[in-house]
Every structure is written in C-alpha cells, then in structure tokens.
C-alpha cells in the first residue's frame, strides 16, 4: 500500500515538473493569439475565374491562329464565360474539326454543325483553380516572409478558394494589404502606336478596327505628366502577347533614376536577357511600355540594345519603390484577390485584453478557492491542490502542443476551474453521504470515488463532444477557447480523481484509525 502510494506521489510530482518545465517561462513558451498580441487577420478569395478566363482566352487566340493557317472560314469566335467560348458560321465542319484538335484536350465541344460551344472540361477547370490557389498561397507566403513578419500564418481556409493570412504584430494594415493584394503582373511590350489622349482616339487610329493581336492599354496619369503634359490618362496600343514578363525577372530592388528619384531596378534571367536584347536591338528609337497590372507605368524610348538590366521609373515614393520591388521579386499572383474578412487588433487593446483575462481568471479562482476552503475545510485544500495541478498541466500541455492562447481561452481556463470544482464537489458530497452510513472513513472515501467515477466519465465525455465540435466550428479565438477546454477536461479527470484520491489516501495511511474526516 505504501509503496503503491509512493509511486502515485512520484507520478504526480513528475507530471507537475514536466508541466512547469514545458511552460516556464510562460512569456516565451505560451503562444498568444492575434487578439492578445495584436496583428492582422485576413481572409481572401482567389478569383479563380480570372485564371480560367486567361486559359480560355489563350485557347481562343491559338485556335484563331490555327484556323487562319488552315484557311478555315468562320463568322465569330468569342469567349462567352470564364470556361466557355463559341464558334459560329463555320463553312466546312471537317476542316474545322481537323484544325481545332488541340482545343479538344482542354475543352469539350457541343454536338452539332456549323456552330459549336466549347466548355472547359471539369477535370481541367478544377485543376486550374487548384493551381491558381496554391500558386497564390506560395506567392503570398513569399511576400509575407519578405515583409519580415514573425510567425505568420498563410493557409487555406474552409472553402477551396479562400486563403487565411495572419500577421502578428503588423500595425500598418493598409500597406500589408496592398503588398499581399497587388497582382504584380509585369509585362514589357513595344508600343505600336500612341500615346493617345483617349481610348476612342486610339481606336480611330486603326479605323475603329484594332487587329485582334493588339490591345489598348491605359497609362498612369504620371506618364503624361512626366512628358510635360497635363496629368491625364493616356492610352497606348501594344501587342497582346508580352515578349518579357515578370517570370523572366531574376531580381528587383529599389534604386534611383537619373533625377535621383526613387525607382525600381530589375535584372532579367539568362533566357529573358537574351530575348530582351533581341527585342531592344530591333526596336531602337521606339517606346518600350512597362506595364504593371494592365497599366503602363512608364514608356521610355529605347536608346540602345539592353540585355539584362532595366529600370521602372514613375513618381514613386521610397516606400512604394521598396514595396514594388518586393512584390516583383516574389512573383505575380495568378489571379486577382478579394478581401472577405479583416480583423485588426492594436497592441494596446491586446495588452488590455490580457490584463482583463488574467484579472478575471485570478478573480474567479480566488472566489472558488475561498468557498472550497470555507465549505470543505481540510478537504478544500485537497480540491485546491487538484485545481492548481490541473491549471499547471493545462498550461504545460498548451505550451508543449504549441496551442494558442486567446482571450476566449481565458474563459476556457475559468470553465476548467469550474469543471475541476464540479468533479471535486461530486466526490466530496458523495463521501459525506457515505460517511453518514457509518461504514468508516476509509470505506466512505473509497465508495465516494468509486461510485462517482462513471458520472465523471459521462460528464466529461459530454462536455468533450461539445468542445470538439466547437474546435471544428470556430475561427482563431474560438479555437483557442475550445483547445483550452479540451485539454482542461482531459487533465481534470487525472487531477480530480487520481491526484485528489492520492491525497486522501496519504491522509488515511498516516493515521490508520481515522474516525473523522474534515470535509
């Protein structure tokens, strides 16, 4: 019996030491949630439709070229939705089908003759959506890392196309959002005609019939202003297909232009440099449009052959130049993003919340402790011990599992105290009842623990079911609450039964003929 008790005591001691070791010092070991340490929580949606539309447009462009090569006549070839396009007025079905074989791998063609609707195959569209989201995830991750945020979270959120970003400690939300959101699609194209003062003027230059391989792109107001004109949007006509894009970048960094104004310098990789060299050699004296997210940022005249170095000028502030080089380095997003949710907690509110949470927890614990000591006398110490051990295990497990403490997590602490008290009360009340039946103290204690065991199991399982579903339901802070509650419930079974019983038995073993129990 005594040996058994010694083992039990050692087990309890080991658990306490391990727990304290796991969470000490708490300021370093316990993860604080965004609501406590401050930061930004964002949920975004990748506009996967845009990625699909690009695929569809590319296919249509290629099909148009193929049909022209094969000399197939048609009246209309048009993209009707992100995953659909139609061809109408086909003269020779057989020739058309032969020339359009390539499109069939990605699209399924409607039956009929002379007019077809092409719909993207579901396998392909799902795959493309998936790719767009995972590319966006990687890109955002790179950008967030470059921002220098400590312990950021970039992960998929419930829906397939949603992304969760958590940036602890970030206070300049506007800038963080701009950096995450900017598509940063860089294209270098030769200007065919322009600039024009309006879109209509650009189209009139082609008799309102702009060839399909050309497009009209707006320029930023600064382009005109830097050319000496009044600030107004100007328009350029450029080729649709970009010879050089952001993918060809090797690096981008803030630099200064010839007037010592902030600019972004970039260098191209080998392949890009070769193509850029060819392009600029052929186009000396023409304008090079530097297009960022479908807007011409600047359109310098090419003076000589350029290979691997270039500069983007515009009226940037230092910060803007820095941010632009950051997003260019991390690559373009495959599709634009929508913001669905934003929660920002300032560090002062976080500190306030910690204070409130700690006050409430300590207040609750004090109330409970006073009551237990007053009502159960010596046994109250027993309950107090098991509650304190419970809280230690809870803290230790949270630190060990890397669980996050949130403001609702404090509520989880308080409820854990409540559950601990409940189990103790359940046992103590039963012991009191059994003491009334005059079987002796030892029998009463044993009966009290034994009879209540299954009740404790049942109550804890029921609470655990609720807590587990809460974990599944909640976002950040609520998950913190659920985690705290789950760990607290599990360790409570150990402390309320094992620890508390061991203390009683130590008391009983000291005095073999105990007649009364202070309970």
């Amino acid at each position, binding site marked *: 019996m005594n040996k058994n008790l010694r083992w039990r005591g050692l087990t309890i001691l080991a658990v306490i030491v391990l727990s304290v070791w796991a969470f000490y010092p708490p300021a370093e070991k316990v993860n604080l949630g965004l609501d406590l340490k401050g930061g930004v929580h964002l949920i975004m949606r990748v506009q996967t439709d845009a990625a699909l539309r690009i695929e569809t447009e590319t296919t249509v462009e290629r099909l148009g070229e193929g049909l022209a090569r094969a000399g197939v006549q048609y009246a209309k070839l048009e993209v009707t939705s992100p995953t659909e396009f139609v061809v109408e007025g086909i003269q020779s079905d057989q020739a058309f089908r032969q020339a359009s074989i390539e499109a069939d791998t990605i699209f399924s063609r409607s039956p009929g003759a002379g007019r077809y609707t092409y719909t993207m195959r579901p396998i392909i569209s799902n795959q493309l959506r998936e790719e767009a989201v995972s590319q966006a995830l990687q890109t955002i991750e790179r950008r967030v890392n470059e921002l220098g945020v400590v312990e950021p979270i970039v992960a998929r959120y419930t829906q397939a196309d949603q992304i969760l970003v958590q940036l602890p400690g970030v206070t300049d939300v506007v800038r963080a959002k701009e950096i995450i959101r900017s598509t940063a699609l860089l294209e270098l194209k030769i200007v065919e005609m322009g600039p024009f003062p309006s879109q209509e003027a650009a189209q009139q230059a082609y008799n309102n019939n702009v060839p399909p391989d050309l497009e009209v792109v707006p320029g930023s107001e600064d382009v005109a202003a830097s050319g000496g004109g009044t600030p107004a949007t100007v328009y350029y006509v450029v080729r649709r297909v970009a010879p050089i894009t952001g993918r060809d970048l090797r690096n981008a960094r803030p630099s200064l232009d010839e007037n010592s104004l902030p600019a972004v310098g970039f260098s191209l990789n080998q392949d890009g440099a070769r193509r850029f060299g060819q392009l600029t050699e052929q186009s000396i004296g023409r304008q090079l449009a530097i297009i960022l997210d479908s807007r011409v940022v600047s359109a310098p005249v090419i003076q000589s052959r350029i290979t691997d170095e270039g500069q983007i000028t515009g009226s940037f502030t230092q910060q803007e130049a820095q941010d632009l080089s950051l997003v260019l380095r991390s690559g373009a997003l495959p599709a634009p993003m929508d913001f669905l949710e934003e929660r920002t907690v300032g560090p002062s509110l976080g500190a306030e919340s910690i204070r409130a949470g700690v006050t409430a927890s300590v207040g609750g614990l004090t109330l409970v402790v006073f009551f237990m000591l007053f009502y159960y006398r010596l046994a109250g110490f027993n309950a107090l011990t098991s509650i304190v051990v419970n809280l230690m295990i809870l803290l230790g497990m949270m630190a060990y599992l890397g669980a996050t403490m949130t*403001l609702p997590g*404090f509520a989880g602490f308080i409820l854990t105290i409540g559950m601990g008290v409940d189990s103790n009360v*359940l046992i103590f009340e039963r012991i009191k009842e059994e003491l009334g039946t005059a079987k002796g103290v030892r029998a009463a204690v044993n009966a009290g623990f034994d*009879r209540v065991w299954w009740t404790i199991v049942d*109550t804890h399982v029921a609470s655990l079911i609720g807590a587990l579903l809460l974990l599944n339901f909640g976002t950040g802070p609520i998950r913190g609450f659920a985690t705290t509650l789950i760990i607290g419930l599990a360790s409570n079974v150990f402390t309320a039964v094992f620890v508390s019983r061991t203390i009683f038995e130590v008391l009983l073993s000291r005095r073999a003929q105990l007649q009364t129990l202070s309970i």
Partner: protein
Amino acid sequence: MQIFKNPNFNFIRWRWPALALSIAVILAGAVLMATQGGLPLGIDFSGGTIVVVKFDQDVTEDQVRQSVAGVSGEVGVQQFGAPEDREWLIRLPQTLSDEQGASLEQGSQQIEAALRQAGLPSFEVINREIVGPVIGADLQRRGIYATLASLVAITLYIAVRFRFSFAVGAIAATFHDIFVTLAFLMFFGYELSLNVVAAILTITGYSVNDTIVVFDRVRENLRSMRRDALEQVVNTSVNQTLARTVITAGTTFFAVLALYLFGGDVLRGFAFTMLVGIVSGTYSTVFIASAIAIILSQRRRPSAAPVAAARPETRPGRKARGARAS
C-alpha cells in the same frame, strides 16, 4: 458543513408549473424576436464593419456621432470599455455596395476619414473588424451545423449510456437552455456574435453535464429502490444530488461572474450568455430533464411504471459497472 440536511423537496410535483414557466419565458423571447425581426446578428454573421478608436483626449458621444453622421449607412456609436479609456466603437452594417470584395474596406476608410476631418482630438484605431457577406453566411451555416451536430452526438452518447427516454429528456433540457438563453439575450439586447455562439455551445455541454449527474444517480437508485415508482426514484435522486448541483452551479456562476465583471467588453456577451445558461441549466436539470424523462417513460409503459422501473437495466454491462461501485 452541509447546505442541506437530508433534503426532501418534492420537485417532481412542480414539474407542470415549471414547464409552464419555461414555456412562458421562451414564448416571450420568441414573440419579441418575431416583432423585432429575429435576434440581432453581430457583424460576425451579418457582415459589416466595426472600428474601435482610442482618443487621447475626452470626447462626448454627440461629438463622435456628429462626426460620422455623413458616412452612408446606419452608423452606430457606443462607448467601449471604461469612460476613462476614451474608447469608442463605431459600427457600420453591411451595405449593398460592399458586395464587391474589393470595396470591403470602404466602410472603415470612410469612418476613419470622417473622424479625422471632424476636428476631434487625435486618435488611434485599436481594433478594426471587417466581415464580408460571404464569410458571414459561411459562419452562420457552420454555427448552426456545429450546434446541431453537438446536440445529436450528445443525444447518441446518452442513449447508449442510459436509455432513450433519458436522452430525450437531457436533450429537451438542453434545447430549453438554448432557447431560454436566446430569450434572455433578446431581453437584454445582446447580439449574436461568434463568442456568444461559442458560449451557447459550451452551455450545451454544461447543461447535459448537469443532467447526467442526476441521471447517473437515477440509474444507481433504480437498482436499490425497486419498489418505488419512477417519480419517487427521480425525486430522491434530484434531492440526493441537490447539494452538488447547487454548489457547482454556484461556484461556476461566480467564476463566470468574475469574467463578466473583469473580462472586458470583448468577453461580456460571452460571459452574460454563460451566466444565463448556468442558471437555466441548473433549473432545467431539476425541473425539466427529470420531468420529461418521467413523462416519456410513463407514456411508453402507462400501466406498469413501478414494475418497469424495477427492472430498467437489463444489459449486463451496466450491472457490472454497478457491482464495481459497491
């Protein structure tokens, strides 16, 4: 020390008035909800914008209200935290123009710009919450699923561990607690937020927890009180566990009261919901759960309640557990 010396209150006799009282409270809440178009949803569920700003000098509510009057939409202004903190919460519900995700932050930008132009003392934004309609609808759906799933799972657990009529009694008591809590949230003008739903889910666990303690005792007593009617057995069990029920409810209530008083504005809705839930959970354990378990047991065996009560546990597993205990 003991609160009750061998209590022997006749709780079961009060079951009909208790049911009537509960139904009255729930109905009152339902009527209020119906007339006011449902429980007000917080921005977690309805979508919208909340900005909390902290001024470095005192401002009056009217000053804040006037400065944001120009912002389109129904702007709400309320003091946040203690007056000496000089913190104000400004709320803007979802408007149709917010449907486009890109313009989601417009509301908060307008509020901040309006405050800046109003010539008030300088301030900092300490909290900004913007929830789009997509997320709001998603959270609504998941909140309902989580609550229903936890109710179903708990019912199944009790049905396996006890008997079906007890499971129905426990779950009826839990529904009772959820509805009473919602009614009180309505009476006191709290809105449904993520934290409040978390509290409601916790209440389901707590309420069932309380009920299980009584039912466990009923199960035990059904073996020793073979000659008594089920009503008698249940009443005795409620009385035997009364001290525990009151002490646990009391201590948990006071612990959560500390949370309500000191936990700050963010957790106030959560704490309030828990407080109501604890009181309702205790009340429903004593009056509702047992009553429904009895009513259901009788309806299924109208003539032979005492006999049926004498041999309720036929599965050997339960016997074994009983034997273990003695």
